[in-house]
Structures are given as C-alpha cells and as structure tokens.
C-alpha cells in the first residue's frame, strides 16, 4: 500500500539557493510519479500575504499539496547570517535563528494535527524540530534525511553546539535516518553516535532534459587553444575554493593556456580575490558571481574540465550537472558523488599537487577528456531521482 508522506522540505528551483532545494524537487517529483502522495511543507517568506497557502504541485497527483510557512528560513542560514540578513521589521519572525526554528516546529505540529498521513520525512536540521513535533503529535514514524551536517558546513571548524544538538536530537528521535552517501553515513556514525543499522544510504539523482546535451556552440566562442577549468559552488570553506586556487597557481606556473573560472558567491569571496591577486594570477582566475539556469548551463558547456575540490561534500550534485552538459569532472575523494561516479578523475582535496597533475594531464591528453566525457555522461544519466525515490519507498514500507 502506498503511504502518504508529510515532508518538511525546501524551496524548489529556480527560487532555491543551493543543492538542497534541487534535491527536494528531484526526489518529490520522482515520488509523485510513483504515485506516492506528499504533503510538502516548506518555509517561505510570504510577506504577510497569507498564513499558509495550498497549491497543487502536479496534476498527476491531485492529493499532493504544498503548505508554505511564512518564515525567512533557508537551507544555508547560520546564526550570523540570520541575524544580519533577515528582516527585522517582520514582528512575527523569531528574534534569532533558534527561535525561528522552534516557531517552525510548532507550525509542524499544527499541520500534523490537520492532515492525514502515515510517515514524516524531514530534510536537514532546520526542519528536524518540525518533524519531531509532528511525530509527537501523531505517533507516526519519522525519517530525517541528512544532506549536510554542521561538520560539513563548517569545513571541520567552528561547530555550533546548538545546531549540533538539534541535529543529534533529530537523528536520535527519528525511526530512520537517510544519508545521501556512505561518506555522510560515516560522519553520522562517527560524530552523532547513531548506530549504523539505523541509517540508510540513498544517493541523490540528477534531472536532465534532452536539450541539455545538444548545443556545443559556446565552445566555439572560446579562444583557440585556451582551456577552462571550472569551479561551481558557494565560496565557503566546505567547498574548498582555496584549494582550487592553490592548485590553479601550480597549473599557471606551468601553462599559459589554462584559465580558471569560479562561479558562486559566499563569505570567502573577498579573501579569495585577495589571494588570487597576491599570487599574481588574477588574469587567469575569473570570478563570475553566482550563476543559475541558462547562464550556468552555458558555463558548464564552455568549460573543459569541472573541478569539485570540496573539503567535505555529503553528496555534490554539480559534477552530475557538468557531465550532463558534456564536461568531464575531477572530484574530491571527500565527496559522496565520488561513490557513484566511476568515470571521473579523483584526488584528495588537500593534494593540490596531484590535482594540478590531473588537470594538466587531462587537458593535455585528449583521449582522457574524451573518455571521461563520453562514459561519464552516460553514467550520470543513470544516476536518477527515480532510483532514489524507489529506495525511499522501500524505506517507507519498512516503517
């Protein structure tokens, strides 16, 4: 029997600000296709328009509804950014991040009271409180789905103990924990003391449409002989942009024909710009700011090699996007996506010497890129949300 799911998720593209919204969108769409009914709850700034609204996500699944909770919560908020970025003039919002999280939890409880469902599925810590409240109210089993933890976001430093506590409580009170990679699972076991048998791994998937792979016209725009190495991601410690730049320096010392492009924004932007200038490679390292949609797709297509240098990457969807767009990838071994992609170059994020070796070698020897591109694209197209949804349904059925 199909179960009805109460899901606490995040804004879908194009309004999302990172991978979590994309993941929620992909998984939800695939679950709905498999006739799973979902009550999708998400925080969203409604600017006082309505206390909540109801919307049909897909005409195929008329029972699938979306509830928005008027809140400035978004996936990558931390205590500091909440304090500085969030409107102060909305009296209904919490005074700090934790107050807002608990306000959301009570909304979760209210929804649970009003709706009929069998399973609760909550994505990442900001929604764990809502999940727990819903469980307490109804007695229905709770799944917490972990896409990133405080250990990943902080790049190993600056763990906020209050965030950690909420994460840990969510995992402990849950009936099942879903990790998006074995890499993530090992962090959950090691740092949160959750028993292995309580954790299931469900790898992310990738959405693509046929035209994504069609045009290669952007390649022609590129100057003859010049190669582009691309970084896409938030400019934070976790994503390893500083390792990317250290590596770029090594490559630039060696070759004049390789350019580096950094697409993204974040708290390290200023620091990275200064580092690039200090190294004397500011003509070789270009910052594009945050790209999305068509412009990001074009960037992928223009690049000759995509690099994911993350220090700690629970999954990492961008390499799959790159492959779908026909650009081969080099991955940090400290990433979940490297568990599911075989047709990729792989290095330890800290081994910038080997990273540089592989970048130069790949760009110098055509057969490497050709094989990576051809086989990698095929492989990426096989990593689908459909498979992830099937695994989730299997897990729902065990509860």
């Amino acid at each position, binding site marked *: 029997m199909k179960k009805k799911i109460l899901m606490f998720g995040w804004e879908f593209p194009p309004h999302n600000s990172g991978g979590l919204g994309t993941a929620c969108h992909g998984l939800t769409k695939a679950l709905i296709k498999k006739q799973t009914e979902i009550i999708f709850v998400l925080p969203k700034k409604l600017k006082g328009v309505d206390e909540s609204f109801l919307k049909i996500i897909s005409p195929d699944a008329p029972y699938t509804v979306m509830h928005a909770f008027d809140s400035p919560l978004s996936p990558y908020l931390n205590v500091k950014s909440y304090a500085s970025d969030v409107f102060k003039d909305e009296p209904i919002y919490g005074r700090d991040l934790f107050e807002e999280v608990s306000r959301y939890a009570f909304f979760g409880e209210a929804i649970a009271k009003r709706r009929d469902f069998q399973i609760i599925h909550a994505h990442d810590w900001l929604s764990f409180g809502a999940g727990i409240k819903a469980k307490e109210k109804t007695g229905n089993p709770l799944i917490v789905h972990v896409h990133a933890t405080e250990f990943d976001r902080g790049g190993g430093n600056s763990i906020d103990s209050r965030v950690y506590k909420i994460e840990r409580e969510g995992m402990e009170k849950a009936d099942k924990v879903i990790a998006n990679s074995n890499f993530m699972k090992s962090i959950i076991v090691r740092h949160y003391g959750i028993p292995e048998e309580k954790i299931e791994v469900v790898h992310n998937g990738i959405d693509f449409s046929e035209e994504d792979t069609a045009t290669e016209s952007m390649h022609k725009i590129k100057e003859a002989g010049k190669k582009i190495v691309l970084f896409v991601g938030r400019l934070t410690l976790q994503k390893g942009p500083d390792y990317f730049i250290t590596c770029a320096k090594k490559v630039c010392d*060696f070759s004049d024909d390789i350019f580096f492009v950094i697409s993204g924004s974040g708290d390290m932007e200023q620091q990275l710009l200064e580092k690039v200038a200090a190294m004397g490679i500011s003509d070789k390292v270009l910052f594009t700011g945050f790209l999305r949609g068509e412009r990001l797709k074009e960037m992928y297509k223009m690049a000759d090699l995509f690099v994911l240098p993350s220090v700690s990457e629970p999954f990492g969807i961008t390499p799959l996007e790159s492959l779908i767009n026909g650009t081969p990838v080099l991955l940090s071994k400290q990433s979940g996506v490297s568990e599911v*992609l*075989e*047709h*990729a*170059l*792989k290095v330890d994020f800290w081994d910038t*010497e*080997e990273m*540089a*070796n*592989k970048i*130069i*070698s*790949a760009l*110098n*020897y*055509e*057969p*490497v890129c*050709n*094989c*990576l591109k051809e*086989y*990698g694209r*095929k*492989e990426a197209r*096989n990593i689908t949300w459909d498979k992830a949804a099937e695994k989730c349904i299997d897990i729902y059925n065990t509860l």
Partner: protein
Amino acid sequence: MPSVIYKIMPSVCFYFQVHQPFRIKKYSFFDIGKDSSYFDEEKDSELNNRFVMQKVAHKCYIPTNKMLLHLLRKYPDFHFSFSFSGVALEQMEKYSPEALASFQELVDTGRVEILGETYYHSLAFLYSKEEFRKQVLMNRRKIEELFSVKPRIFRCTELAYSNDIAKEAEKMGFKGILGEGVDSILGWRSPNFLYKSKGADIKLFLKNYRLSDDIAFRFSERSWKEYPLTADKFANWLSQANGSGETVNLFMDYETFGEHQWEETGIFKFLEDLPEKVLRDKDNNFLTLSQCENRYPVRDEIDVHHITSWADLERDLSAWMGNEMQKDALQKLYALEKDVLATGDEEIIDCWRKLQTSDQVYYMSTKGMGDGTVHNYFSPYGSPYDAFIYFINVLSDFKLRIKDNQKKYVERNKAEV
C-alpha cells in the same frame, strides 16, 4: 573427427602462466624531464614491483612449486607445462631468487615443459612483426639460460590467437600453439581434440574454458551451484571426457594458486588431491603439451581471422584496446619503434619494451565500469584514467630522452668527424 571412437584416453594438459609486469609508479606531469625512473615506486604498495613479486612468491610461487614437486615425486606419470614472461623471470632473479630456484627444480625433473612467448608479455604482434619476433627470441634465450631447455610450443600474450599468429609461430619453428576454445570458432566441435591452424602446419591446442575457469575463477565462489569444488568432483568431470575427447586443456594463471584463490579457500588441498583422483581412472593421464602433440593426431582444421583471447565473455582484445586511451597509448608507443632502436641504447630499448607489457594498457580498461555492476578488473591504480595519465606522462618523458639521445649521437658523430 573419427566416426567410431574405440578407446580414447583423455589426457589432462595443465599449462600455468607465470607473469608479473613492471608496474609504472605514480608519475606526475611535473616529473616529466626530471625523473627517468618509471618503474621504481619506493613505498611498499601494489605499485612497488619488488613488494608485489615477493608477496606473490611467498603466497603462490614457492608453496605451489613445493606442492607440485611433491606431486611429481609421488606420481611418476604427473606432467604439466609452464609459460614464463621474461619480465617475470627478470624480477624473480632480482627480488626472489628462492622462487626462481624452486621453478628450476621443477623443470629439472624433466617432466615439466616450458612454452615460448614474448619476453615482455606484449601485444607487439599487432603492431610490429619484427619486434614481436625479437621478443620471442629474447624469451627463448632467457629460458635456455635459466632452465637449459628450448620451448617447442608457443603461446601468445593473453592467449591471443589467429591464423596469422599461428603462421608466424610456425615460421619461428614452433610445433604447436595455444588458443582459447571459443565457441564461435569451434562450432559443434569440442576443444578436447588437437586441431590444425588454417594456412599453417602447426598443431593447435584449445583451452577447455569451462573446466579451466571452474578452477581459476569459480573455485571459491559460494553462489556457484557446484561450490565447494572437490578434486573428486573435478576428476569425475574429466573422466566424462573419456570417449569424447583426447586432451583436456586446462590453461590458467599460475597465480590462481594462493594469490587469486587464497590458501584459505582450500585451493592447495584441491591441487594436492587432484592427481590421485584423476589417475584413479586408469584411462586418464597427465601430459605436457609436447607429449600431447606427439601422441595425438590432428582431427580438424580451425580458421580464425580475428584475434581471439582468453579474456571476458567476448574472448577478444577489447580489454586491452577497447577504448580511446588504450588505442592512443599503444599507437603512440609503437610509433616510437624506429627512433628507439636508432638510439642503440640498451636501457632505452629495454624501457620501451617494458612499456609494451600488456598489463599497462589493461589497467586503462573501462569495460563494465559505471553500469552499476561489479567489475573484477584488477588494477593497482585508482582508476583507468590514473593508469593512462601515469603511462602517458612517462611516455612524454621517454620521448624527451630519445631526443636527448639523438642530440648526443649527432654531437658524438660531429666530434669524430
């Protein structure tokens, strides 16, 4: 094939392949022009050739040789064959003289045959017949030097076989040649007879891949319905060939014993028990390939135009030249032939040939990857891409060395004039 079979004694012909490549170390782009030692990984790892040779000698060569010597002493009718790559023998001399001595002891009994092959375990046949012949002769000299015997039967790298290879082997004086018993070339015929190669006067031994792979691949596979495989059961299967075959050719890597199939799987016990169980049936015996060649007539002719091998389901060379990286690596490597030989520098020539060892391109194979299935391609490198990158970086350095050498040569000549 005779229409009426009276009494045919099936002979068991074991041939074991002994080979170890010189593995390339993790050679970075930044090493090009600075480091000309390619094969000497310093740390103990699967890339350190001394480490691997000593490990394999300890786990496989020495204990298996001891067992086989014991069996030769116990059963006067026990015979079998080996084929050694020159690069394996060279590494044994350097890193495990004990293993080499134990092989010599076996061959000294006179009941163990050694086959001929290329010294560098290469696919040179495909790119340069001249180079191929040189390597076969080099291997022959090495075998004569170490074992005082002369190979009569030929096996090509990876059991590669075609009409052309057979013709070449015949020209070099070999009386027999080995091939894979591929269904598509046999048709309704059985691998358990001797054949003749089309267009060459040379006898062809075809591997019985079912029985060979029962030992080499399936022996420890718990999901196999015949698991566990006992000597008794296997001997019964062999006796079933009685009446429908003259020779059962069991060809496999020698590392099957103790290295691919670990000691804990019971592989040594299996080997120890096998002669007794096989010889229990008075119709059975064990022969070397030359004895077999002398004893049995040719039953039919086999015609093979495309090269077959003992690898994968395809039984072709796609594991060595299936993707663009492999083709590129081989083509670039063999394109250097003239320049390399022109240097007259022994070290450079030897290095070029070590790069020809088939394992180097095998490590670059992408077959079966990324389709979600488990692929059992063994490689000491992280991925085929790494293997290609290290190889091609080495090749780039190697080309610089050739150029350097040419410059020196020109200068030397000038000086002499």
